[in-house]
C-alpha cells in the first residue's frame, strides 16, 4: 500500500502548535508522525486520504500560526530488508530449525521451516511466536483441522502442517501477509486448504479442532466469540500476542464462552496460553 507523506514546515518557536496540528491530523486519519527540524512529517495510507477532510483539519490552525506543507507519495517497499538480510537462523526446542532461503539447511533437526518474512510478522524470533511454536511441538496436531488467525508469515500453520495437521485455514487482514503466507507455504511444501485475506468476518463456516491466534489483546477480545462458534467441543485454542498481565482480562472472557484455561507460558512478560472448549 502506498502512503502519502505531508512535510510540514512550521514558522513558529512554539512547540505546542506542532502538537495541536498533529492531533488534528490524527483525527483526520493520519496514523504516524515524525518530528523534523523544520516541523514534522505526517503519514496516511494513500487510499484513506481525503483532500476535504485534510484541508478542513488545517483550516482551524491557519489563522493561529503560520505553516506550509508539501505532499508526496511514498511507494510501497520492503523496509525490513536490512534486518532480513542479517537474520539469524533459530532452533526451537532442539526440534525445529527456522531459517531464511539464504541460510544452509541443517539436517540434524527433524523439522525445518524456511521463511521469507518481508514485512509480515513471524520468524520465530519474537517471544510470542517462539512460545506458540513450542506449544505446537508439545501437543498432538496429527490429523487436526486448524484455523490460524493473524497468520503473518504463516509460520505457525506451516509448523502445524509439519506436525501432521490435515486441513488448514490461514487468515490475515494485511495483503502483505496474505502474499507472504502463500509464498511461505510453497517454500515449505505445506499447502493449506484456504488462505484468506480479511478479519473475523471471513472465517469459513466450518468446524476446527485447533485454533491458533497470535495477535493482540484487543483484537482477541473482539474475535473470541467467533472463535467459540467454529471450535469443536473439546477443541484446543492457543492465544498469544499480549503480556502476562493481560491474561486476567482475557481469561474470564474466554470462560464466558466456555473455553477454559489450561496452562500458559511466559517469556520476558509476553504470554501464550492454552484453553480447551468444554464438551
Amino acid at each position, binding site marked *: 500500500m502506498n502512503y502519502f507523506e505531508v512535510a510540514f514546515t512550521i514558522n513558529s518557536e512554539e512547540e*505546542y502548535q506542532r502538537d495541536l496540528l498533529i492531533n488534528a491530523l490524527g483525527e483526520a486519519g493520519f*496514523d*504516524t508522525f515524525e518530528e523534523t527540524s523544520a516541523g514534522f512529517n505526517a*503519514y496516511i495510507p494513500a487510499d484513506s486520504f481525503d483532500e476535504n477532510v485534510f484541508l478542513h483539519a488545517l483550516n482551524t490552525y491557519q489563522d493561529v500560526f503560520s505553516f506550509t506543507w508539501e505532499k508526496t507519495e511514498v511507494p510501497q517497499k520492503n523496509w*525490513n530488508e536490512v534486518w532480513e538480510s542479517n537474520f539469524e537462523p533459530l532452533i526451537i526446542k532442539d526440534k525445529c530449525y527456522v531459517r531464511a532461503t539464504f541460510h544452509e539447511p541443517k539436517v540434524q533437526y527433524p523439522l525445518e521451516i524456511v521463511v521469507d518474512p518481508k514485512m509480515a510478522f513471524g520468524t520465530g524470533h519474537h517471544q510470542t511466536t517462539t512460545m506458540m511454536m513450542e506449544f505446537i511441538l508439545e501437543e498432538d496436531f496429527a490429523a487436526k483441522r486448524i484455523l490460524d488467525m493473524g497468520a503473518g508469515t504463516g509460520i505457525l500453520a506451516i509448523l502445524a502442517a509439519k506436525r501432521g495437521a490435515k486441513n488448514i485455514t490461514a487468515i490475515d487482514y494485511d495483503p502483505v501477509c496474505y502474499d507472504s503466507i502463500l509464498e511461505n507455504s510453497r517454500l515449505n511444501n505445506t499447502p493449506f486448504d484456504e488462505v484468506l485475506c480479511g478479519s473475523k468476518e471471513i472465517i469459513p463456516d466450518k468446524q476446527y479442532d485447533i485454533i491458533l491466534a497470535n495477535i*493482540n489483546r*484487543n483484537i482477541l477480545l473482539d474475535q473470541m466469540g467467533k472463535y467459540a462458534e467454529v471450535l469443536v467441543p473439546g477443541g484446543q485454542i492457543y492465544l498469544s500476542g499480549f503480556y502476562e498481565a493481560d491474561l486476567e482480562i482475557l481469561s474470564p472472557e474466554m470462560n464466558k464462552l466456555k473455553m477454559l484455561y489450561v496452562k500458559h507460558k511466559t517469556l520476558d512478560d509476553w504470554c501464550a496460553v492454552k484453553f480447551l472448549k468444554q464438551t
Partner: protein
Amino acid sequence: MAKQVSALIKLQIKGGAANPSPPVGPALGAKGVNIMEFCKQFNARTQDKPGKVLPVVITVYADKSFDFIIKTPPVAIQLMEVTGIKSGSAEPNRKKVAQVSWEQVETIAKDKMTDLNAFTVESAMRMVAGTARSMGITVSGNAPWN
C-alpha cells in the same frame, strides 16, 4: 559499559496502530532493526489508548537492538481536552480563549512530570502554565506557591 547509540528517532504514533509503513518502516528499517518486533511491542504497550496520538522516542543501538519510551499526550493536547477548545489563540496576550484552574494544571503536571524532565511538581506546573498562557488560556486564581 553503556551500549553505543546509533540513532534517536522521535515519532508520534496512534495507540495500538503502529505498522511497518512509513515512517516507522524506513526509519527503523534503514538502521537494521526488526520493524515487526517494534510494532508488536508498541501496540501491546499502548492497547489501552487506542487511537490516541502518543509521542514515542526510540533509541537504536549499534548492535541493532532498540528500546523506546512512550510518553503521555502532549501538554497542549491535554489542555485542549480539559478546556474543550479546538486551537490556541492567534493573539494569546490579548485574546483569551479559555480558562483552567491550578488544580487542573497540577493534574496535567503530575501526568507529564517525567516527560518534562521536571524534578518537582511545582516546576512541572510552571511549565504547563507557561504552555497554557502561550495558547491564550488563563490560569485562574493564585498559584499555590504564592
